[in-house]
């Protein structure tokens, strides 16, 4: 049953889910690039000229002390900062080379391509099924009951949640545990077939076991999606990411392969942070 669903999902997405391991090693293309990105809330600057490349099909971790702009940066990538009063964004952000702030860009369509999972799980006050089906429905990706069923099941499966909830898809999304709710939110994000998934400290509200499960999930998901994850935990960044960027006081101090950042940081501030002397 699950196989059939997954195949249906594959067909709907036009993607091949069974990726051979070898291709993971190939050179990554840049999915998202920012050039001189500056953000200010009113007259308080938050980001001061960020140049960063996010590689496709990889997990990029954003680390750094609290309040130095990681979440702000993340929210720029799907233009969620547009919703914040008094927030001004300058600079260039490209998705697959196209400027996301260009005139003809429809924010609604952008956010279908760049999904987001929040720090605190925020399932809608609907059933589990309707939570996942919401995105596909509004975007017109699922016509009719069968297509919707297929997408919901496949998304829940991919998020590692289907086994636990398959018998109670009609139960409210809020009746799940914290870890399950977060996986529900991931399933919800996957259901619209995004290309990028942004995760803002997705495990900070969860216990270690739930955290471990989601970290495993992130690893699997990176085969098909580009993932950018903000995390406070350096161990988590080390475990799940291939690229890491270190933010400090609104700037990217250093960015590069995760191993390099943690074992041989170039900048003194990076070294201080990863060895625990600051932050």
């Amino acid at each position, binding site marked *: 049953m699950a196989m059939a669903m997954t195949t249906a999902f594959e067909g*709907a*997405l036009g993607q091949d889910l069974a990726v051979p391991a070898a291709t993971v090693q190939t050179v990554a293309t840049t999915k998202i690039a920012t050039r001189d990105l500056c953000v200010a809330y009113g007259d308080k600057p938050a980001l001061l000229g960020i140049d960063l490349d996010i590689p496709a099909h990889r997990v990029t971790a954003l680390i750094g002390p609290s309040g130095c702009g990681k979440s702000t940066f993340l929210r720029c990538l799907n233009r969620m900062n547009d919703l914040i009063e008094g927030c001004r964004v300058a600079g260039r952000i490209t998705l697959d080379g196209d400027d996301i702030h260009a005139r003809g860009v*429809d924010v609604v369509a952008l956010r279908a391509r760049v999904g987001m999972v929040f720090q605190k799980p925020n399932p809608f006050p609907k059933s589990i099924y309707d939570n996942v089906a919401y995105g596909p429905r509004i975007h*017109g990706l699922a016509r009719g009951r069968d297509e919707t069923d297929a997408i919901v099941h496949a998304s829940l499966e991919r998020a590692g949640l289907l086994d636990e909830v398959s018998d109670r898809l009609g139960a409210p999304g809020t009746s799940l545990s914290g870890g399950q709710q977060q996986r529900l939110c991931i399933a919800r994000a996957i259901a619209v077939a995004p290309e990028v998934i942004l995760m803002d400290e997705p495990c900070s509200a969860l216990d270690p076991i739930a955290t471990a499960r989601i970290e495993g999930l992130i690893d699997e998901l990176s085969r098909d999606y580009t993932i950018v994850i903000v995390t406070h935990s350096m161990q988590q960044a080390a475990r799940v990411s291939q690229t890491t960027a270190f933010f400090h006081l609104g700037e990217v101090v250093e960015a590069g392969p995760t191993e390099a950042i943690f074992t041989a940081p170039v900048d003194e501030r990076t070294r201080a942070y990863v060895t625990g002397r600051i932050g």
Partner: protein
Amino acid sequence: MTDRIAAGLARRHRAERRFRAYGVAALAVAFAFMGAMFVAIAVEGAGGFRQTVIGLEVTLDPAVIDASGGRDPVALARADYGGLVKRALRARFPEVSGRRAKRALYKLISVGAGARVRDRVRADPGLIGQSVLFWLPAASDVDMLIKGRVAGDGPEDSRRIDDRQRAWIDALIAEGRVETRFDSSFFTNADSREPELAGVLGAVVGSAYALAVCLALAFPLGVAAAIHLEEFASRSRWAEAVEITINNLAAVPSIVFGLLGLAIFLDAFDMPRSAPLVGGMVLALMTLPTIIIAARAALKAVPPSVRQAALALGASRAQAVFHHVLPLAMPGVLTGTIIGMAQALGESAPLLMIGMVAFIIDVPGGPTDPATALPVQIYLWADSHERGFTENTAAAIMVLLAFLIAMNLVAVVLRKKFEKRW
């Protein structure tokens, strides 16, 4: 995939714009109604604060005022000043003869004019014997005519002012003896049978007493009940039962409270009818749910972390509530109380039931004296057929609204200042 999405975008954005437009339209409708309402009241009510006065030379004949010559205050107060006014009218229009014609002449001046003369004489007895120019209030029919509220033309039978009276008025106007002035007596007089003499003071004082009683009863009881329900008994069966009764009471029609007041306070307890005390008690019962609900909401809005922090530091439940939670909740409590009081000020139905609907000409001296309340006064005047009372009604409404706007503004400022998103 993105093609499918792109195909639906235009339709979705159109739906978005429509949805937004409905919202604007709804606001526009609400504000249009409101604007029309206030404009109508203001137009009608502006006249209520102004009074047409007629200038007359009144001879202060000592033989009438102070026969004994001793300037005795009692005699001064009792003299027939109305007669003096009539004499002044006859002096101005000496050609008028015959009982009917004279009565028509006297009808131009308000019956309360004598009181104005009297007050002046009592304040300054040295005027006795002189001929003084008094600006006396015109009768309501004249007042309405001058203000343009009634038609001056048309068949004589359907007019309150006949041609003869019209001629006299025109003569006075030609002499510059007719003016319309701002008249503060609207604020200082109590009710009267004559529209030009009627004022809101009695009703305002009655309302003030009733509200004071209401506040004194409802605020402490309400806040105490809210604290008990929210902090000490929350989620118990008792709290659930009480919550149901409170929510129900908040939605019980006000007239039912009036029936309750009638049956219990007036009949069973035999309390004085028409008294602000009883009115205040009935209003307190009505306002209690509002205060309790608002206070509970304010208490509930304080995050549990505040209570937990206090308790973790060793405070008792009561200390945590009174020292930490209640102060944080106080703005919300006060806002709710002010709004509750404003609602109570505007209530009239229950007061009708307990008898505060009588015609009271004295300003009440205490909460047990018979009185009326401002909204009831408005209702009584609105019910009257005399054109002059329509003006008074609108003017009284403006006074009432002024109080209410002030109270609501205070509540809003309070709320804005302390509004937090936890």
